[in-house]
């Protein structure tokens, strides 16, 4: 009993000064509630895993090359008929066939993630994701060369199926894409850059 009385006495003695000093903190707290209401009624924002993505470097092997560098390819023998003055008499050409791969694919598994609170949304929402890509030179559906913007890689986007999981009373939706890069029309090496724009919509619950 004595000890309880001592504690109460102590609190009484310290309370006025303690509360007075908290007055300086209280306005900050109230202001934060006023301007930034608690996210009880809101879902977290869509989270993009990376702002900048560098895709795996393209390898010559991906385009049918036997090595990861320059190479010479023997097209075999050719037999030409010439006139006595040196003019070629038979038609012929060099046709480097059999090496026709010009497209390579790069996957971005987790481009974005959206967590939706389950206590508001009992059913898993129906989400759609649309993607587009624009080269650094402004050309749509392309990545453009950073040194020569006139050189650009045609890019097709193939969306991956949305991935769903549940954790901590949240629906977690994750989206990714495959980029199909067609290198048929470029002649320059170096970095090609662009921006992927993702539009995510909730169609229904």
């Amino acid at each position, binding site marked *: 009993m004595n000890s309880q009385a001592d504690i109460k006495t102590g609190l009484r003695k*310290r309370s006025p000064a303690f509360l007075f000093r*908290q007055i300086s903190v209280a306005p*900050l*707290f109230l202001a934060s509630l006023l301007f*930034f209401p608690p*996210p009880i009624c*809101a*879902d*977290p*924002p*869509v989270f*993009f895993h*990376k*702002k*900048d*993505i*560098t*895709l795996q*470097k*393209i390898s010559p092997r991906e*385009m049918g*090359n036997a090595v990861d*560098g*320059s190479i*010479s*390819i023997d*097209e075999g*023998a050719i*037999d030409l008929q*010439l006139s*006595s003055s040196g003019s*070629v008499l038979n038609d*012929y050409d*060099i046709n*480097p066939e*059999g*090496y*026709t791969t*010009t497209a390579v694919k790069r996957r971005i598994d987790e481009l*974005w993630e*959206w967590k939706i*609170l389950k206590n508001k*949304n009992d059913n898993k*929402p129906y989400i759609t994701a649309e993607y587009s890509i624009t080269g650094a030179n402004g050309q749509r559906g392309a*990545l453009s060369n950073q040194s020569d913007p006139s050189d650009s890689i045609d890019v097709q986007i193939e969306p991956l199926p949305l991935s769903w999981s549940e954790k901590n009373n949240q629906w977690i939706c994750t989206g990714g894409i495959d*980029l199909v890069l067609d*290198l*048929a*029309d470029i*002649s*320059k*090496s*170096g970095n090609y*850059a662009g921006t*992927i*724009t*993702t539009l*995510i919509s*909730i169609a229904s*619950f």
Partner: protein
Amino acid sequence: MTTKKAITGMIIAAAMLFSGSNSAQAVVAAPGASTSGETNVQVSVPEFIILHYYSDLTLNFAAPTQSVKEGAKAWDDVAWSTGTYEGDISLSDVKGVNSEDKVLVNLNNLWAVRGFSGSGNALISIENKQADMANDESVITMSDLKVTRNGKSEKELEVPLNGISTANATKGGVTMTLDFSKTTISGMHKGGVYKITASTI
């Protein structure tokens, strides 16, 4: 830590928790709601070149079976005196392989290049590695080898690289002069070697 400090810390922590920037960006997940984001992406294309070439080139010259009409000739360098021949006669413009020591050969489409380079161009060069083609004591000599494309012929030629596609490969040829002055017998003469080099630039 005193009770005062603990409570002060809790208040500040609560203020930070409820006023974080995340809630400012939060969206209500309702039908029709949408949000968007941008991601910068880049990929590196390597520099490499693929040279297509024929490793075995056989040239079959046709025999000059036709008769050769020499036409009229003004013997300007010849002086005739009382029926006696006193000058040298040079038949420098005689037509036909039998009378020519050297023959210029122009062969198209002997090489092709594909690939990527920093400039989008490539340098093609040719080197005469083994000039003589022999058949026993008889010799044909290659000289003045050049690479050609679109009417240009040089020892080194800068050509555009049209990328990796085989359909767009840049093709070119070779010119050479064959010297038959030491050729004494017909038949296959072997041993000549030239080397074509393609480099990215």
